[in-house]
C-alpha cells in the first residue's frame, strides 16, 4: 500500500524524514518495501500484515507514527456544509440480513455538480496509484485512503423507489459491475439493492447502472460495515479484489462509519457543491461491543524479557487508542479500540508494548542448556545410504510428490503398498499442475522423468537415487498410508571422475551392487534377489528383493521395453525400488570378533557347465547344504557364455575354501572333500566339469 509522506505529515506533523520513517515503521511491524521520491513528495510502500486492516489508510499509519514520536494525530479539517432536510425525506434503508451487514449509514447530498477533481485531489490519488474519475467518486476514494473506510456514492435518481435494501442476492440474479463485467450472483452473496434489483455488490464494487455520471445531481453516500467472511467468500468466488473488499474482508472499523461519511459529505459540498441532508439514516441492528482485556504488566517481562515501566506501558497502549479501565492489584483492564480487530488477549497487549519499546531492545541469549540433542534414528540411516550411493556415483534426486495418474497400474509397488488397488490411490481434489493429481505411490515415475530430462540435455550417463515418501489409499475414513521408499535408476556408462569416457557400460549388477552397498552401510544382512515377474521390468532381467527372512520389499531389473519405448529411451535403463520403512525396522547385525585362523586354508577352483536357468544362489545353497567337513566359504570367480559353450548352458567358476581350526589339512583330505562336493553338484544340477 502506498503512503504519501506529505499527506502523512499533514496528519502527524512528523519530524522524521522518509528514510527514518522507513526504519521506524519497519521496526514496529509495518515493513516498508521501498521509498520513492515523487515531485516533492515521497511514497512509502508499506507491507501491512494481514491482521492489521486498521493500518490500510493514512490515518492508520499516522496513529503508529504518533505513538513512535509521542505526538497526536491531527484529524483532517473540512468546512461544515450547508444542510437542509432529513435524509429520510429523500431515501429509505432496510437491512434484511443483519449478520452480513451490521451497520448501514446513508446520507444525501443534493445539487452537486459533477466534474473533474481539483488538481490537488487528482494529484494525491494519482500519486498513490489511484486513477481519478470525477469529483464525487474521487472524494469517496480519497476518504477511503485517508480514514480507511470504503464509501460508495449512488446516483439517487437511479435508485428505484429511492430505496436501499441490503440483502442476499437471489440465485441467478445479475449485476453489471463498474468494471463492465456481468456478474451472475448466488444467494450466498450480499448485495445492495433498490426496490427492484441489485445496484451494488456489497463491500466489493458498485453497479454500472447507478454510477455517478455527468448528469448526476443528487447523490446517496453509503458508509457501512459488512461481515468479513461474507465479503471474502464473494470476492474469491467472483475473482475480485478491490480497495473496498480488501478492507472489509479483513475487518473495517464499525465505529468509523458515520465519521468517515461526514468527512466525505463535507468534501463533496466543498468541492462539488450541493446541500447535505441534516442527518444520516444510520441503521445499526447489531452494535459492536467493545472487548476488554485483563492485563498483568509482569507478563511483558516474562514473555519478552523486556523491563518496561508500567507508566510507559500505559503511555503506549493509550496512545494506540486503548482505554484503561478498572485496575486491581497486579492487574489492569484495557478496552480495545474499535479499529483493532486483531487484539483480544493479554499476549496481544504484550506484543503492542514490545513492538513500540522495540524488539531491538530485547536481549539475545541461548536458553540454559537442558537437554541432549538427538537425531531421528531413521535420519542417521538415510545419511548412511546417501553416502554409500554417492560414493558409487549416484546423484541424489528430489521430485515433486504428485504425479500423473497415467502412471497408475504401470509400476509394481513396493511391498507395503502392494495391497493398494486402483481405488486406493491418494488423489488431490485441487491439483495445481494439470493432470498431476496423484500422490505418488512409487518414486519411479519421477526418476524416469528426471532421466528423460537428462537425456534431453545431452547427458547420457546417469545414475540417480531418491529417498521419499510414497502414498497409498486409506482404509475407510483413516488418513492415507505413508511410507518411505528408496529408488534407483541408472543408464549409460560407468563414468569416471574427470574423464570423458566411461570405463564400461552399466548393467543390472551395478543396480544390485548399489542396493547391497546401501544395505550394508546400515550393517544389515544382505538383500536376497530372486528372478521374478515384475510388471514394469523386462522378463528374464527382473528380480524381487527380499529380506533374509523372506519378506519381499521391492524389485530391481531392466526397465520393460514397453515403458522404455513410451519414454523414447534408446539405451537400457535399470530401475529398483524398495520399501525403506521395512528396511529401517530390521535389527542391525551385532558385530562380534571371530578369532583369526591358526591354520592355513586351501582353495580349489571349479568350473561347472550348468543350465542357464541354474542360479548362482542355488549353487551356493547346494554347496552350503552339503555340510562338507572343513568347508569355509565359496566365492564367485566368473561366469561365461558364448563361444565354445553350448546354447542353454553357462559356465560358472567357483572358488571353494577349506580350512580346519585344529590342524593343517593334508592335500588328500582336501581332495577327498572337494571330490564329494563336486559329485553332489554334478548330480544335483546335471552339470559337467568344464
Amino acid at each position, binding site marked *: 500500500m502506498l503512503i504519501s509522506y506529505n499527506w502523512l505529515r499533514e496528519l502527524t506533523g512528523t519530524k522524521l524524514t522518509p528514510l527514518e520513517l522507513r526504519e521506524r515503521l519497519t521496526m514496529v511491524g509495518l515493513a516498508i518495501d521501498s521509498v520513492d521520491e515523487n515531485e516533492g513528495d515521497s511514497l512509502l510502500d508499506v507491507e501491512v500484515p494481514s491482521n492489521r486492516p486498521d493500518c490500510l489508510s493514512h490515518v492508520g499509519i499516522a496513529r503508529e507514527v504518533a505513538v513512535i514520536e509521542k505526538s497526536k494525530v491531527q484529524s483532517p479539517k473540512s468546512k461544515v456544509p450547508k444542510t437542509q432536510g432529513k435524509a429520510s425525506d429523500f431515501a429509505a434503508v432496510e437491512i434484511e440480513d443483519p449478520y452480513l451487514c451490521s451497520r448501514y449509514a446513508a446520507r444525501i447530498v443534493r445539487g452537486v455538480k459533477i466534474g473533474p477533481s481539483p488538481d490537488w485531489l487528482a494529484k494525491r490519488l494519482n500519486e498513490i496509484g489511484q486513477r481519478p474519475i470525477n469529483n464525487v467518486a474521487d472524494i469517496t476514494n480519497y476518504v477511503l485512503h485517508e480514514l480507511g473506510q470504503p464509501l460508495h456514492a449512488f446516483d439517487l435518481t437511479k435508485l428505484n423507489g429511492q430505496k436501499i435494501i441490503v440483502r442476499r442476492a437471489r440465485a441467478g440474479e445479475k449485476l453489471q459491475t463498474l468494471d463492465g463485467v456481468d456478474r451472475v450472483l448466488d444467494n450466498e452473496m450480499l448485495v445492495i439493492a433498490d426496490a427492484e434489483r441489485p445496484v451494488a455488490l456489497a463491500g466489493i464494487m458498485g453497479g454500472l447502472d447507478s454510477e455517478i455520471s455527468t448528469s448526476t445531481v443528487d447523490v446517496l453516500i453509503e458508509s457501512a460495515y459488512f461481515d468479513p467472511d461474507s465479503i471474502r467468500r464473494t470476492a474469491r468466488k467472483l475473482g475480485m479484489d478491490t480497495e473496498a473488499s480488501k478492507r472489509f474482508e479483513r475487518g473495517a472499523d464499525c465505529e468509523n462509519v458515520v465519521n468517515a461519511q461526514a468527512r466525505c459529505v463535507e468534501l463533496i459540498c466543498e468541492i462539488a457543491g450541493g446541500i447535505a441532508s441534516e442527518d444520516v439514516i444510520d441503521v445499526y441492528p447489531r452494535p459492536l461491543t467493545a472487548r476488554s482485556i485483563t492485563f498483568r504488566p509482569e507478563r511483558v517481562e516474562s514473555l519478552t524479557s523486556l523491563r518496561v515501566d508500567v507508566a510507559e506501558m500505559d503511555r503506549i497502549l493509550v496512545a494506540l487508542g486503548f482505554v484503561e479501565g478498572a485496575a486491581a492489584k497486579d492487574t489492569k483492564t484495557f478496552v480495545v479500540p474499535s479499529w483493532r480487530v486483531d487484539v483480544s488477549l493479554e499476549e496481544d497487549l504484550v506484543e503492542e508494548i514490545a*513492538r513500540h519499546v522495540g524488539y531491538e531492545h530485547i536481549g539475545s541469549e541461548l536458553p540454559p542448556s537442558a537437554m541432549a540433542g538427538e537425531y531421528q534414528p531413521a535420519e542417521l540411516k538415510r545419511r548412511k545410504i546417501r553416502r554409500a550411493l554417492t560414493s558409487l556415483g549416484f546423484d541424489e534426486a528430489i521430485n515433486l510428490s504428485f504425479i500423473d495418474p497415467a502412471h497408475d497400474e504401470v509400476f509394481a509397488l513396493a511391498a507395503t503398498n502392494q495391497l493398494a488397488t486402483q481405488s486406493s490411490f491418494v488423489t488431490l481434489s485441487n491439483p495445481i499442475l494439470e493432470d498431476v493429481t496423484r500422490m505418488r505411490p512409487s518414486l519411479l515415475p519421477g526418476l524416469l522423468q528426471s532421466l528423460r530430462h537428462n537425456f534431453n540435455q545431452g547427458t547420457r550417463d546417469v545414475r540417480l537415487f531418491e529417498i521419499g515418501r510414497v502414498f497409498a489409499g486409506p482404509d475407510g475414513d483413516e488418513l492415507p498410508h505413508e511410507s518411505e521408499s528408496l529408488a534407483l535408476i541408472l543408464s549409460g556408462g560407468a563414468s569416471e571422475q574427470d574423464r570423458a569416457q566411461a570405463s564400461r557400460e552399466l548393467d543390472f549388477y551395478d543396480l544390485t551392487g548399489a542396493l547391497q552397498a546401501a544395505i550394508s552401510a546400515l550393517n544389515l544382512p544382505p538383500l536376497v534377489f530372486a528372478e521374478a515377474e515384475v510388471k514394469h521390468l523386462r522378463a528374464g532381467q527382473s528380480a524381487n528383493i527380499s529380506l533374509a527372512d523372506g519378506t519381499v520389499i521391492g524389485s530391481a531389473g531392466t526397465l520393460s521395453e514397453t515403458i522404455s519405448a513410451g519414454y523414447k529411451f534408446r539405451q537400457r535403463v535399470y530401475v529398483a525400488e524398495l520399501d525403506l520403512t521395512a528396511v529401517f525396522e530390521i535389527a542391525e547385525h551385532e558385530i562380534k570378533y571371530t578369532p583369526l585362523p591358526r591354520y592355513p586354508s586351501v582353495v580349489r577352483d571349479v568350473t561347472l557347465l550348468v543350465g542357464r536357468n541354474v542360479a548362482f544362489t542355488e549353487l551356493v545353497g547346494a554347496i552350503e547344504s552339503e555340510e562338507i567337513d572343513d568347508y569355509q566359504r565359496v566365492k564367485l570367480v566368473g561366469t561365461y557364455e558364448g563361444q565354445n559353450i553350448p546354447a542353454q548352458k553357462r559356465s560358472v567358476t567357483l572358488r571353494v575354501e577349506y580350512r580346519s581350526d585344529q590342524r593343517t589339512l593334508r592335500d588328500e583330505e582336501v581332495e577327498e572333500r572337494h571330490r564329494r562336493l563336486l559329485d553332489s553338484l554334478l548330480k544335483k544340477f546335471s552339470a559337467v566339469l568344464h
Partner: protein
Amino acid sequence: MQRPFHGLNQIGAFKVMTNPNSPEDPRVAVESARKAFEQEFERFVRLTDASALALSLADAETEQRALADLRTRHMGKKSALAACKKLIGKVAPDERAAFGQLVQRAEAEITERVTTADETLNSLLQSARRERDRIDVTLPGRRPRQGHIHPITKLRERIEDIFVSLGYAIEDDREIETDFYNFDALNIPANHPARAPQDTFYTTEGFALRSQTSTVQIHAMQRRGVPLRMIAPGRVFRRDTPDPTHNPMFFQVEGLCVDRGITMAHLKGTVAEFLRRMFGAQTVTRFRPSYFPFTEPSAEFDFSCFKCGGSGCRICKQSGWIELGGSGMVHPNVLRIAGVDPEIYSGFAFGLGIDRMCALMYGLDDIRLLFENDIRFLEQFD
C-alpha cells in the same frame, strides 16, 4: 709368482734421458701410451659436446660400456700407463722428478678426458632414461565418478547438525494431515485464507497436504510432553504455480523450544546463533514485529546481507537485510491445544524455508531447478 720390486731392484737405476730417440727411453713409453689412448678415445671426442648428440638410449648404454672398457685398458692396473708409473722409480734420481711429472701429466690428461666423457654420457643416459620413463603426473587420478547429495539435503543435514549440537531433537511426522493438525491446532481461524483450496492442497477425502511443518510441533508436544526442544525439517506443500521463486512443494524447517521461563531473548539468541553458524560469525540478525496466527508476540527475522555485509546490493534489494523467516512466542491457544499450560510454560517457535536458504546461499536464480534433477545442476554442489 713374480715379486715386482725384486725385478726392479735387479734392473737397478739407469740413465734414460741420454737419447731421446732411443727405444729404451721411458719417455717413449709414456708417449706411446698417450698415443694409444688418443687413438682409441677418438670415438668419444664428440661426447664433449653433449648438445650435438642424438644417441639413442641403447647406443648411449653401449658407449658407456665401451668407455668403461677403455678406462680399464688405459688406466687400469695392467695399462701401459700403469707400466710407466712403475718406471718412475727406475729413472736416474736427477731425472726422476721430471719423468714423474711427465707421467703425472699424461695420467691427469687421460683421467680428465675419460671423466668428462663419462659425465657427459651419464647425464645423457639419465635424461634418456627420464624420457623413457616419463608419465604425465598431471592426468586426473583414477576414481569412479563421485555422486552428489542434493543441495537441499546438504543444507538440511547442516541445519540438523547445528540444532542437535544445541540440544534439539529432530522430529518428523505425516505429510498428509487432518485439518486439526494443519490448522486448528495452530490457531489458524476457520475463515483464514490459508485454509482455502486456493492455497492448500486437499485430497479427495478432505485431508490437507501439510502447509508447514508446525504440524510436527503439535504431535511432538503431545507425544513427548514439555519441556521440549525440537526442530522439524521436511516437505511442505502450498498451491503456488511454479515460477522462478515458487514451487508447489518445498522444504521447511521449524523449531520449537518450550520450557519454564523461555522468553523472546532466547528466541533471538537461538536464531542468531544458528544463523552465525550457517552464514558465518559476522552475521547479524534483526527481529521486527510481524503477524502469524500461531505466535504472539510474532517476529520476522532478517540477517545482514552476506553479499554486501549491509551496505546494500542487488541480493538484499539495497536494504542491507535479507528476509529469512518467521518466529515468535508460541500462542497460548497452541500450547493449550497441545496440553501445555501457558501459565507455567512459555516457548518460542521459528520457521524458515530451506529452498529459499539454498537459493540465497548458492545464488540460484530459479528454484524450479531444485526438482529437475539435471545432473549438470546437481554436480555443482560438492
